[in-house]
C-alpha cells in the first residue's frame, strides 16, 4: 500500500500511506550499514506517521516525552513550519511506541540482534544510553546526532506532506504544482480558491511524494519565535492527562511497597490485617515487595503500609560513611578512563604554585512532582499500559517480558509526565504495574507509589568525590590534574536494561570534567568507578551534575591562588580555546556588571560548564540578611547555536538552574541500616518561590552547532553558588549540600 518517496537521508525514508479517508506521512526505518550493530535487520518497519490528515483535520505526532521542556511544541513546530499549518488549528499527539520514532532508543528495536561485536555493541549501547539519559534536553535542539536528525527529518516530513498535497491539488485542478501555494492548512489555487488539506487527503494517499527542498531559515514563520505551548491550556485548567489521571472503565487502585533495603529480598510477609481493611480487594506478592489493590488509592496505601514484611539486607554497605569509604577506595585502583591527558601532568612546572583540594557530593533523588505510577490492563493474551515514560519501546519490551507476551501484544499509551529529570527513563514503574494488573486479569489497575515509596526507591544520582591537583604561575593556570570517583550510571543501566554487564570507558562519569573548554597546557582528567550496588541512574545533566561542581569550584580555588579575578581568569582560558564559551562568560560579566568587588554583606560567584553541546555561564549573588544568606540574583548566558523557541530556552535555563540550586542548597540522600533516610519533601525539599533568585537569561547563537537546553543550565549553578558563598564568607564550599555549612534561607 505504501509508496515510498525519495531517500531523504541515508537512514530514513519519508513516505506516505493511504489510510481510511486520508493520508499519513511518515518514516520507514531501513537498515543502516552493518558496521553499526544496533540497527534493525534489513527491510522496513511499518510506517510511523508524523503527519496524519483525514476528514477530522490535521494531526501531528511529536513522539518525544513531554515532561515540561516544551519538546512537543517545538517538535510540532518543525513539521508545521514546512507544512503551513498553525499550531492552534491542529492536534498534536504523542503516538504509540514505535521504532521509527526513536532514534536514540534503537536499542529497543535492535535487541537482541545477531552478528555484532560485543565490545562495539557495548560502546554503542553506552552512547545510546547516554542519549537516553539526555532526553530531558529539548530534543530537537540537542547537540547529539539523533537530535540533528529530528531537526531535519521533521521539517522534511512537513515539506513532503505539503508538496504531496499540492501535487494532489495540481492533478485535480489540471495545473502545475509550482503554480500553487499553501497557507494555514490549505492549498491555494492560482485564482485564490482555498482547498483545505482534508479535502485533498484521500487523493494525496495515492500520490507519489515529490522531492522537496527545505525552506531557508530566513523564511521561517514559527521557528525562532516564542510559540504558545500546545499543552499550556490543558495544564492551566486541570485537563491535561498525566499517568496518574487515566481512568479506564472499571479501574481499581493499588499501591506498592518494595524492600527499602534496595535490591534486598523479601523473606516473607503477613497481610492478614491488610486484607481486612476497608475497600481492599487483593494483596499481591511481587517477589521483592507487596501491593494492595483497593477501590481507592488512599485505601490501598493504608493497606499496603499495614502489611508486616520481613525484609532481607541490602547488597551494599549499610550507612553513608561506609558507602563513601568505598567510593574513596576507587581512587586507589587504576582509572576507568583518562579522556584528557594533555602535556605532562605529573611534573610540577618550574616556579609554579601547587594547590590541591578534595570535594564530595551526595546521592540525590529525582523527586518528580508526580510520584511514580502506571496503569495496566492484562487480559491474559494482551497488555495495555498507560504511563508517562521517556522510553516507550523499552517499557514495551520490559512489560512484555514481565507478562510473558510478545512485544506486539503490548500497547503503550504515553501520557504527559509530571516531571522526568531522568527518572521516567527507568522501567520499574511499568514492570510493577504490570505485575499488579496480572493479579486481576481483565481489570485495569492503577498502581501509584506513595511519595515515601518514590523517594526511597529511586535510581539516584550517584554520590561522588573528586581529588584535584593544580598549579598556577604568573597568574595563569598551568596544570589541572583531576580524578573523579563514583558509581557508573551507564554500566549499571546497561546491565539493568539488557542483562549484559556494562564495560569499557564510561564517558558519562567524566562528562563536564575532561571536556571543559579551557586552554591549560598540562591537563589530565580521569574517572574511577566505585563498585557499589546502590541503584543509580540518569539525573538531569548526569555526570555534569557532579563534575560541574568539582571542576568549577577548583577553577575558583586556582584563580584565588593565582591572585586573579575568577571571571577574568576563566575568560582568558576560554578565549584561547572556545569562543562561544568565552562569549557566555563575557555576557554574564556585562549583564551582572561584574567588577570583581562586592559591597559588605554581598557575595558573587561565577561558573561555566560546557555540556550537551551548550556552554552556560552563570553569576550568582548572595546577600547576608541578619545572618541568613539569601540567593538574591542570578545571571545566565548560554550559547545554543540556534534557539528554535527562545521562550522555551529561557524557561529551561532558569528551571535547570533552580533544579541545580535546590540540590546544592539542601539535596541529600543518606543511608542508615541499608535504607534511604529521606521520606518526603520535608526532608528532601527544593527551592520555592521565596528563595529562588531574580534571574536574567541571555541566549546567544554563535555556536556552530545546535546544543541542548534542558540540562546545561543545571551544572554551573552549584559551583556558582558555592563560589558566591566563598566571596561572601571566605569559607570554601567543598561539599554539598551547602545547608550543612552555611545558614541559607530555606
Amino acid at each position, binding site marked *: 500500500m505504501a509508496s515510498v518517496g525519495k531517500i531523504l537521508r541515508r537512514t530514513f525514508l519519508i513516505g506516505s500511506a493511504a489510510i481510511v479517508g486520508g493520508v499519513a506521512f511518515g518514516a520507514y526505518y531501513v537498515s543502516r550499514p552493518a558496521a553499526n550493530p544496533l540497527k534493525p535487520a534489513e527491510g522496513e518497519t511499518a510506517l510511523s506517521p508524523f503527519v496524519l490528515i483525514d476528514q477530522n483535520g490535521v494531526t501531528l505526532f511529536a513522539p518525544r516525552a513531554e*515532561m*515540561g*521542556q516544551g519538546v512537543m511544541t517545538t517538535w510540532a513546530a518543525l513539521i508545521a513550519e514546512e507544512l503551513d499549518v498553525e499550531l492552534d488549528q491542529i492536534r498534536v499527539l504523542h503516538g504509540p511506541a514505535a521504532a521509527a520514532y526513536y532514534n536514540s532508543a534503537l536499542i529497543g528495536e535492535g535487541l537482541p540482534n545477531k552478528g555484532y561485536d560485543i565490545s562495539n555493541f557495548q560502546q554503542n549501547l553506552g552512547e545510546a544510553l547516554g542519549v537516553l539519559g539526555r532526553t530531558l534536553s529539548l530534543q530537537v535542539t540537542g547537540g547529539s546526532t539523533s537530535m540533528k536528525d529530528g531537526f531535519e527529518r521533521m521539517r522534511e516530513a512537513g515539506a513532503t506532506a505539503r508538496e504531496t498535497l499540492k501535487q494532489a491539488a495540481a492533478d485535480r485542478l489540471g495545473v502545475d504544482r509550482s503554480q500553487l501555494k499553501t497557507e494555514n492548512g490549505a492549498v491555494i489555487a492560482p485564482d485564490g480558491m482555498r482547498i483545505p488539506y482534508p479535502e485533498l487527503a484521500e487523493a494525496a494517499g495515492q500520490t507519489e511524494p515529490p522531492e522537496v527542498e527545505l525552506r531557508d531559515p530566513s523564511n521561517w514563520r514559527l521557528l525562532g519565535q*516564542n510559540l*504558545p*505551548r500546545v*499543552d*499550556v*491550556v*490543558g*495544564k*492551566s*485548567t*486541570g*485537563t*491535561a*492527562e*498525566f499517568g*496518574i*489521571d487515566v*481512568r479506564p472503565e472499571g479501574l481499581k487502585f493499588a499501591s506498592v511497597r518494595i524492600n527499602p533495603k534496595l535490591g534486598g529480598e523479601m523473606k516473607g510477609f503477613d497481610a492478614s490485617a491488610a486484607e481486612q481493611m*476497608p*475497600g481492599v480487594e487483593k494483596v499481591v506478592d511481587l517477589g521483592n515487595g507487596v501491593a494492595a489493590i483497593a477501590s*481507592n*488509592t*488512599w*485505601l490501598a*496505601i493504608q493497606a499496603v503500609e499495614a502489611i508486616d514484611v520481613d525484609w532481607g539486607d541490602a547488597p551494599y554497605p549499610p550507612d553513608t560513611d561506609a558507602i563513601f569509604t568505598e567510593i574513596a577506595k576507587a581512587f586507589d585502583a587504576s582509572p576507568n578512563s583518562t579522556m584528557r591527558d594533555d602535556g605532562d601532568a605529573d611534573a610540577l612546572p618550574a616556579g609554579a604554585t601547587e594547590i590541591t583540594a578534595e570535594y564530595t557530593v551526595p546521592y540525590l533523588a529525582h523527586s*518528580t*512532582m*508526580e*510520584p511514580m505510577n502506571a496503569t495496566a490492563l492484562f487480559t491474559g493474551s494482551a497488555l495495555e499500559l498507560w504511563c508517562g515514560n521517556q522510553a516507550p519501546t523499552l517499557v514495551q519490551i520490559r512489560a512484555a517480558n514481565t507478562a510473558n507476551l510478545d512485544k506486539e501484544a503490548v500497547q503503550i499509551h504515553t501520557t*504527559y*509526565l*509530571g*516531571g*522526568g*529529570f531522568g527518572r521516567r527513563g527507568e522501567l520499574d514503574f511499568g514492570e510493577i504495574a504490570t505485575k499488579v494488573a496480572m493479579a486481576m486479569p481483565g481489570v485495569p489497575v492503577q498502581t*501509584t507509589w*506513595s*511519595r515515601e515509596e518514590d523517594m526511597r526507591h529511586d535510581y539516584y544520582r550517584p554520590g561522588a568525590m573528586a581529588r584535584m591537583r593544580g598549579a598556577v604561575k604568573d597568574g595563569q593556570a598551568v596544570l589541572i590534574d583531576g580524578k573523579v570517583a563514583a558509581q557508573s550510571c551507564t554500566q549499571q543501566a546497561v546491565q539493568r536494561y539488557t542483562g549484559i554487564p556494562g564495560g569499557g570507558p564510561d564517558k558519562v562519569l567524566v562528562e563536564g570534567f575532561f571536556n571543559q573548554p579551557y586552554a591549560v597546557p598540562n591537563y589530565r582528567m580521569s574517572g574511577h568507578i566505585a563498585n557499589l550496588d546502590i541503584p543509580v541512574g540518569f539525573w538531569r545533566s548526569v555526570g555534569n551534575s557532579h563534575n560541574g561542581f568539582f571542576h568549577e569550584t577548583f577553577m575558583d580555588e586556582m584563580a584565588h591562588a593565582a591572585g586573579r579575578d575568577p571571571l577574568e581568569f576563566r575568560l582568558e582560558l576560554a578565549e584561547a580555546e572556545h569562543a562561544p564559551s568565552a562569549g557566555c562568560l563575557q555576557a554574564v560579566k556585562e549583564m551582572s556588571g561584574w567588577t570583581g568587588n562586592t559591597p559588605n554583606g554581598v557575595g558573587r560567584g561565577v561558573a561555566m560548564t560546557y555540556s550537551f553541546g551548550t556552554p552556560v555561564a552563570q553569576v550568582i549573588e548572595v546577600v547576608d540578611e541578619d545572618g541568613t544568606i539569601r540567593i538574591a540574583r542570578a545571571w545566565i548566558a548560554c550559547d545554543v547555536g540556534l534557539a528554535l523557541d527562545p521562550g522555551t530556552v529561557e*524557561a529551561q535555563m*532558569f*528551571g*535547570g538552574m*533552580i*533544579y541545580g540550586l*535546590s540540590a546544592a542548597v539542601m539535596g541529600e540522600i543518606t543511608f542508615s541500616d541499608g535504607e534511604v533516610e529521606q521520606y*518526603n*519533601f*520535608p526532608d528532601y*525539599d*527544593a*527551592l*520555592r*518561590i*521565596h528563595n*529562588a533568585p*531574580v*534571574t536574567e537569561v541571555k541566549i546567544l547563537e554563535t555556536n556552530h552547532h545546535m546544543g541542548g537546553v534542558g540540562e546545561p543550565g543545571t551544572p554551573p549553578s552549584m559551583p556558582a553558588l558555592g563560589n558566591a558563598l566563598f566571596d561572601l564568607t571566605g569559607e570554601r564550599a567543598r561539599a554539598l549540600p551547602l545547608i550543612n555549612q552555611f545558614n541559607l534561607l530555606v
Partner: protein
Amino acid sequence: MATALKINGKQHQVDLPDDVPLLWVLRDEVGLTGTKFGCGVAACGACTVHIDGEAVRSCQVALSDVWGDVTTIEGIGTPDSMAAIQQAWVDHQVAQCGYCQSGQIMQAAALLAENPAPSDTDIDDAMQGNLCRCGTYPRIRAAIHDAASKLKEA
C-alpha cells in the same frame, strides 16, 4: 453511610470511609483528576482546592471534616472559558511539566480573592507552600501580578 458533598456547584453522595482524604474522594471517586497528589503530608501544595473560598490542602481534610462547598481547578474555569487567573497562566506560558500548576493556580486564586494587589512579599508568603520542581516561579509571580491588574480593570 454516604456523605453529601457540594463540589463545583454540584451535589455528590460519596460512599467512602470517613477518614478518606478529600483529595482521594475527588480523584478516585468523583473523577475530578485536575487536583493532584504530590506528597500526602501538606508539604507541596499540589492538592490545593478551595473550601468555602479558602485554599486548603485536600490531602489533609478527611471526608467527614469537609465543612463547606468545595471548588477545584475544574470549577474555576474550563479550556473554553478560563478564569482570569488561568488566562494569565496561559499568557505567561507558566507551565512546564504542569503537574503542580492546578495547586499553584488555586493558591493564587485564593490570594487574589483576599488581596487584589499583592506585593512580591505577599506572593512569597502565600505561595511558598506550593512546590514546583521545574522552577516556574518567575512566571508564576508575573502571572499573579498580571491577573491582579486585569481583575482590577474588569
